[in-house]
């Protein structure tokens, strides 16, 4: 009952004209970001971050959230029409979505993707509304040892759930944590790893690193890939799915929503992983698995629902614990900090307007996106006709100006360049660079928690096993490491079947 009252308060905020306008702008930008190759949701949010500095924090976070879940919707369009995933979570949609386009059924595929995304987004917002406050209340019992254990568990979970090798993921996470060590040590005032560059005293910012690793490196990787494909442009009348399509999609959408939300709350590139797992589950449960890959509508409905639900699920630990589960929520946390809001378990109590306004805006955003992604699909498809040779120079300019604007500091632009080169090289060599961004954000929290824990225990590590919550997390961490080692690989065979194991 209290939640519903709070939600009504949230709608009173979310339905004010200024919030509606910014939620709409966020959804439109997100849809574009999701559609255009070369700009993922992460780079999109990072580039938009400086534009939120002059805004009210509630408006700013709603705008950025709109970009995030808008990208999840938009990513499906290029996947279905052109077999180009606008962002990583849409990779699985390419398989059956594009096969449907080749069969002249692009309309129903787009419609089911939009309907599935809408249902999943709405259902998972209900989950966020009830789960986040409960989790925040529980997290009030957390002290430094619990936080240290939770952060370590999160990093290992990210590595375990990844599509890349676990050792490579852990290496990337450690590189990110090391980057987070640059700057003045908060506890002793020592300057570390700055090599005389004064600007590095405040540490390496998340935005230049993220824009370099994801935005600039993506452009470098696609430098020869001047896609000449002309997308199909379905009319509104062609969008209507048949009764059979709807019947076949109901269960995958429901399963994808639940699965996606649960996976979203776990650290990792949740929206990407959830779509892989959902596709695997649907194929396994189908009476005709041979249809998958040849235009099965379940192969569109499940993954599209899952990646949208995961996008919302990722906000649960971010808002309830103040802990990002991936680089996107890490940038959004940075946005909160810039606005003077301290993330953590007390955020929901101290900033009810922000939390409930945010929840309400997600309901509104899902309706906006459904409207954007069905009747206006033709308009968005026209944007895909802009030649890539004109598009990517403009994206590079946005990277440059977006990074510079954060602190009006040209050092950040140089950091972006270095991160872009590193991201290009690492991605060519098969490394997933997402853990670098996550490590960078988690580093100060992890270091402070570990050092405070040791100080509390007068220098004994037993503090991590004497407290029940910390012990549980440490045991879960040990289980993950055990499952990842060779003798236990057979127990984690689900990763292989879900397409999560490359080696």
């Amino acid at each position, binding site marked *: 009952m209290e939640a519903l009252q709070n939600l009504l308060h949230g709608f009173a905020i979310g339905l004010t004209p200024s919030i509606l306008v910014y939620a709409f702008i966020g959804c439109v930008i997100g849809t574009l970001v999701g559609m255009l190759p070369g700009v993922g949701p992460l780079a999109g949010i990072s580039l938009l971050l400086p534009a939120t500095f002059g805004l009210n924090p509630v408006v700013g976070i709603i705008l950025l959230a709109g970009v995030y879940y808008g990208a999840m919707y938009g990513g499906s369009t290029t996947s279905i029409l052109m077999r180009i995933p606008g962002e990583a979570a849409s990779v699985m949609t390419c398989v059956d979505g594009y096969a449907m386009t080749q069969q002249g059924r692009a309309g129903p595929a787009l419609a089911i993707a939009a309907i599935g995304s809408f249902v999943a987004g709405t259902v998972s917002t209900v989950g966020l509304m009830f789960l986040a406050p409960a989790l925040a209340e529980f997290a009030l019992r957390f002290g430094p040892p619990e936080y240290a254990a939770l952060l370590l568990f999160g990093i290992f979970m990210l590595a375990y759930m990844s599509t890349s090798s676990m050792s490579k993921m852990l*290496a990337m996470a450690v590189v990110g944590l090391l980057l987070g060590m640059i700057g003045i040590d908060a506890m002793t005032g020592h300057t570390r790893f700055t090599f005389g560059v004064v600007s590095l005293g405040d540490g390496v910012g998340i935005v230049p690193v993220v824009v370099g690793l994801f935005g600039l490196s993506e452009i470098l990787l696609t430098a020869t890939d001047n896609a000449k494909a002309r997308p199909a442009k379905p009319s509104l009348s062609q969008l209507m799915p048949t009764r059979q399509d709807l019947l076949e999609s109901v269960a995958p959408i429901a399963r994808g929503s639940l699965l996606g939300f649960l996976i979203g709350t776990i650290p990792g590139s949740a929206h990407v992983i959830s779509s892989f797992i959902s596709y695997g589950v649907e194929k396994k449960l189908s009476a005709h698995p041979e249809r998958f890959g040849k235009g099965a509508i379940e192969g569109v409905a499940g993954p599209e629902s899952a990646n949208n639900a995961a996008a919302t699920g990722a906000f649960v630990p971010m808002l309830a614990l103040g802990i990002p589960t991936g680089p996107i929520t890490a940038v959004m946390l940075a946005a909160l900090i810039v606005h003077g809001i301290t993330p953590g378990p007390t955020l929901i109590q101290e900033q009810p307007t922000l939390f409930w306004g945010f929840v309400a805006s997600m309901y509104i955003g899902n309706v906006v996106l459904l409207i954007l992604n069905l009747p206006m699909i033709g308009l968005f498809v026209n944007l895909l006709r802009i030649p890539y040779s004109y598009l990517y*120079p403009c994206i590079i300019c946005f990277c*440059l100006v977006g990074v510079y604007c954060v602190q009006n500091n040209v050092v950040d632009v140089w950091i972006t360049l270095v991160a872009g080169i590193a991201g290009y090289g690492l991605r060519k*060599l*098969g490394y997933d660079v997402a853990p670098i961004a996550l490590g960078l954000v988690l580093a100060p929290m992890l270091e402070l928690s570990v050092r405070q824990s040791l100080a509390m225990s007068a220098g004994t590590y037993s503090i991590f096993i004497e407290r029940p919550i910390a012990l549980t997390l440490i045991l879960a961490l040990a289980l993950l490491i055990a499952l990842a080692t060779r003798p236990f690989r057979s127990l984690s065979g689900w990763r292989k079947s879900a397409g999560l194991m490359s080696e």
Partner: protein
Amino acid sequence: MLLLALFVLWQNLSYPLGNLAEPGAGFVPLFLGLALAAVSMVIIFGGGSSRSLKVIGWAEAPRVVLILAAFAGAAFALERVGYRLTIFGLLVFLIGVVERKPVIPTATAAIGFSALTYFVFVHLLEVQLPRGPWGL
């Protein structure tokens, strides 16, 4: 990666480690350096299953170098010649020189984009952008 770990450990020698009850500035970086060295060794010894550098295609490399050079040039010029001239120059180089597009579309895109984004960022979003010696 191993070299990076060794470099971190070497650099970390200059920071105090403290003790367990009162960890110093070098305490956590030491653990991270050791962790990176350990994981790097695992990757090196497990490297037999990875693709060799020759198998990975590098066809885009010449264009990558040009794009990076353009970006570095823009970073150098941004505060010296101002936002609009930098963006104009960057777009002319990338569209006209790298992509070899005709002069008129290149100039239109470069002038239009630099002027429009300047207007949006400075006048609508009230973001400060550097101006050059001629107020551009």
